Each structure stands twice: as structure tokens, then as C-alpha cells.
């Protein structure tokens, strides 16, 4: 049978989100791949040129709807750099807690999507069950479960409620117990899971850096780079956490990406607990920014999927002149042909699931 092109998507149950992956298949082996983006392009960059600075936060929330606080926070950081606004310390701690809660929720959503990709539908329901804990915490903190509109330029929108400490500690203790007792036997120790993911979708560290792959996908190749440590923002210098890098053999395959993301959830739990201890118990959490901004502001943060980068230009108006969004998945998508070549057709979903695609941020 000669080689032919198969469309995985755009309507496909397991490519999470709306994008197309053209795969050239020779029998069962993949010879070439071509991603096709743009099905979810909403023109966020253009719209944000006519909205006031604070109103753009509503748009950036919806860039990656699974992990909204991280995107709005990156935008707020960029605008704060442009305007020269200093966020009070308590606001910074609130931001750190909300970011880490959002990171865990995003990784659990990834796990809920990745399990069924491989045929393990039980992972879907268990991950969503745990995600409910964190969505409840995020709701307590910000009022909404997703698209929260929580970060503000100069701080955050509101204060923490009183019972947040206790609920947070209880949820995290429950979650860590579940990770150890249920998820690890189901996933790490499952021989079939390892058969499906070890050695599949490899990319070397040099190629990954050259193609712009960042985040857990890069750390799985053995590169110890995390923006929270490389260029600390907020109060990340005051918390103690370990950057989860894959140090063993077989770096850069789906299993190492899976393990890096999985372990990051534990690290995020420890960051939240430390933040709850170290946070000042009272004080301002929001500074008032000026109405107009002029100049250029650039900020990069460690989003759940990689390095999210915002470049904001202002020309003295109360709206941004240009907002440029750099999405980690947009860049990782350029590297997918390298990861896919040579593998089998059945591995496409295992590989694409392991890089954690969120089409909202990819297509802006």
C-alpha cells in the first residue's frame, strides 16, 4: 500500500481541541507530519488594541481556558513592567498560590485527557474527581472555576476568604494521598503504560532548544530550565521547590514528559503549603496602576505548558498599542514532526497527548 496522508482532526475525539494533524503513513509507520493550526484563531491580539488595559484580562483568560490565571498573570506582569507598577508583597503571594493551584488543575486536566488517549478511561474520571478539589479552591479564592478574571494590573482582585487555609491544607493532603495510592499504581507501575510511552516520540535536547520547546517538554529532555528559577518573578525566590528534570536514560520520550508533569503536581502542592506559611497575614494586595501607559513591557512566566511570553507596547493611550502573545504550544507544534517521524500511527495520540496541547493558546 503506497504512503498516504491521514487527517487526524480537526474533528477528532482525542486531539483535544480543534486542530488538524496531517500524517503521512507508510503502512503503519509515520514518514512525515504537518500540523495545521488556526481553527480557533480569535484575533485576541487585534481586539486587545481597542480594550482598556484591565479589560484585556478578560481576553487573556480565555486564551488557554484550562489554565486561565497563568495567562492573565503573564499579561499583567508585562503591563506592570511597562508602567513601572510595583505589586505589594501580599498580592504577590496570592498570585503565587493561585498560579500553583491553576497549574495543578491544568495538569490534572491533561492527565484526564491523556489516559483515555492510551485507552485508560479510568484515569479520566479519577483525574476529574481530583480536579474538583482544586477547582473548589480556585473558586473560593477568585469566585469562578475557570476564566476567573482574577489577576489585576498591580495585584489581584480580592482577598482570600477566612477558611481558605484549612480547606487548602485538607484538599492538598487528600490529593497527595490519592496520588500515592491510586495514580501511581495505575499509571507509573503499569507495564502496558510503559510499553506505550517509553521510547515513543523522542526528541533530543539540542533539537528541542533549537525548535523552541519549553516547559515540561524540555525538562523531560534533561534540560534543567524553569522560568521560575531562571528568572524568578513574584515571590518564587522565597519558596523552595525542585525543578523536575528527567535525569535518566531515554530522555525526551513520552514517558519522561509524563513523569515530569506528574511530579510537578507534587512540587506545586509543596509550594502552596509554603506560601500559606510565609505569606503576610494582612496588608495590601493591590496597587493602583496609572491609567495610561507608554513604552514597552516584556514578561515571561512558566505556564503549565511552557514559557508564556507577553510583549506589550503602549503609546500613551489607555489601551495597549500592541499585545504580542507567545504561546509555548505554538512553538512545540513546530517540533512535532520530529517527534512523530519513525513512530507508528497508533503512537500519534500518545505523543501528542504527552505534549499537552491546548488549542486556545496555540491559535490565540
Amino acid at each position: 500500500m503506497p504512503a498516504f496522508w491521514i487527517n487526524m482532526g480537526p474533528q477528532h475525539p482525542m486531539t483535544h481541541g480543534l486542530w488538524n494533524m496531517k500524517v503521512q503513513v507508510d503502512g503503519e509507520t509515520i514518514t512525515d507530519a504537518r500540523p495545521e493550526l488556526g481553527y480557533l484563531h480569535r484575533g485576541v491580539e487585534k481586539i486587545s488594541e481597542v480594550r482598556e488595559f484591565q479589560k484585556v484580562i478578560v481576553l487573556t483568560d480565555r486564551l488557554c481556558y484550562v489554565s486561565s490565571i497563568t495567562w492573565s498573570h503573564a499579561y499583567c506582569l508585562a503591563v506592570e513592567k511597562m508602567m513601572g507598577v510595583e505589586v505589594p508583597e501580599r498580592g504577590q503571594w496570592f498570585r503565587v498560590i493561585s498560579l500553583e493551584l491553576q497549574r495543578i488543575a491544568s495538569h490534572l486536566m491533561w492527565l484526564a485527557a491523556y489516559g483515555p488517549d492510551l485507552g485508560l478511561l479510568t484515569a479520566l474520571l479519577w483525574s476529574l474527581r481530583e480536579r474538583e478539589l482544586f477547582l473548589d479552591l480556585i473558586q473560593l479564592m477568585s469566585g469562578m472555576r475557570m476564566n476567573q478574571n482574577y489577576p489585576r494590573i498591580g495585584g489581584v482582585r480580592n482577598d482570600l476568604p477566612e477558611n481558605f487555609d484549612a480547606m487548602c491544607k485538607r484538599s492538598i493532603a487528600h490529593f497527595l494521598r490519592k496520588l500515592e495510592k491510586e495514580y501511581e499504581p495505575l499509571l507509573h507501575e503499569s507495564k502496558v503504560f510503559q510499553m506505550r510511552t517509553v521510547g515513543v516520540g523522542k526528541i533530543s535536547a539540542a533539537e528541542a532548544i533549537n525548535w523552541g520547546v519549553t516547559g515540561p517538554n524540555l525538562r523531560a529532555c534533561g534540560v534543567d530550565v524553569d522560568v521560575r528559577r531562571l528568572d524568578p518573578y513574584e515571590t518564587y525566590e522565597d519558596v523552595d521547590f525542585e525543578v523536575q528534570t528527567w535525569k535518566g536514560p531515554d530522555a525526551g520520550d513520552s514517558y519522561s514528559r509524563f513523569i515530569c508533569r506528574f511530579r510537578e503536581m507534587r512540587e506545586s502542592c509543596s509550594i502552596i503549603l509554603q506560601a500559606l506559611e510565609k505569606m503576610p497575614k494582612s496588608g495590601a494586595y493591590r496597587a493602583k496602576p496609572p491609567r495610561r501607559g507608554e513604552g514597552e513591557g516584556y514578561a515571561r512566566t512558566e505556564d503549565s505548558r511552557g514559557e508564556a511570553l507577553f510583549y506589550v507596547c503602549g503609546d500613551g493611550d489607555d489601551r495597549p498599542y500592541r499585545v504580542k502573545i507567545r504561546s509555548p504550544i505554538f512553538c512545540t507544534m513546530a517540533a512535532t514532526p520530529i517527534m512523530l517521524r519513525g513512530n507508528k500511527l497508533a503512537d500519534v495520540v500518545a505523543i501528542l497527548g504527552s505534549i499537552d496541547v491546548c488549542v486556545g493558546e496555540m491559535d490565540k
Partner: protein
Amino acid sequence: MSASTPPVGPVIGRPVAGIEQEVLAHLRQRFGAKLVDAKVVRPLVAEVAIDRADLLAVCQYLKEALAFEHLGCISAVDWKDHYESVYHVENYYNGCVVQVNARIPHDDPKIASVCGLWNAANYHEREAWDLMGIVYEGHPNLERILLPKDFKFFPLRKDFPQEVDRQYISRRKLRGGK
């Protein structure tokens, strides 16, 4: 770690204080008059403005001599009298970021492509072409990426009309105020 010594071993990214001054000094020493503007924005971030003709030389120096292996982003900005292609290159070894603003005249939106240096530029340059209309010479396949393949306009340009609803602009502004 100094900015111009080649790094060894696995990549471990931790910030080095004062590195942006060093990098700026190296750039000034190498390119001198060609830098239209060079300044330190904040710790770890340096900004350099150049003309489009020097782009490849500057980028090659940054990548090969100063080990800036990661191209973070390529942005295209439409200042109404000129375009700017803004490159954010990052160094994983010491956390330094250099923002290179390359000026492009408004009536001739062409600039050299850095795809040969960083493959990450591939998609970013396609996006800049797609939305802003800047042609990157030397790009392997410069075609539309986010918009439909037969779309005729470049939406991010300032002369492409913005769909504005009256309700999103305050009445004060509509009446001509600020």
C-alpha cells in the same frame, strides 16, 4: 559565568547577576555604531535597536558567541511610520534576555529570516507574515498559518479596520475626549 565563555555540561538554568551589562558591553564592542540604541531595561534584560540590514550579523553573534540558544519570540509591531520586528532571545545558561528591535521601512516590509539560526523562528515568522505582512527572506515556506490560506488581508496592520462596537468605547472618548 562570563557571557563569552562557551558553556559545558548539561544545561542548568540559573540567573547570573549583572550579566546583562556584560552582554551589552560585548555587543557594543562588536557592533558599536550599528546599534541605534542599546540599554538595560531591568535586571537580566537588555534592549538593542538595530536597522534591518544588521539583523543576521547580530543574531549570529548572539547565538554563536554569547550562547543565546533559545529564541523566545518574534513580534511584529506596526508603528505607523515604520514596522518593527522584535526578537526576544534568551540565554539558558545565565538567564539573560536580549530584546532586538529591527526597524523596517513601511513601504518595503522585508527582512532577513533567522530560520537558519533558530528553527523556532519558523512558525513565528509565518505568524508575522500572516498577520502583519512582513516578508522574511530565506524562510523555507512562508505561508499563512493562523488565517485561512486564501485570506487577502493582513489584519494586525493599523490600517485594517477594527470592528468596534460603540459599547466598548466610553462615551467620553467617542465625543472626542481622551
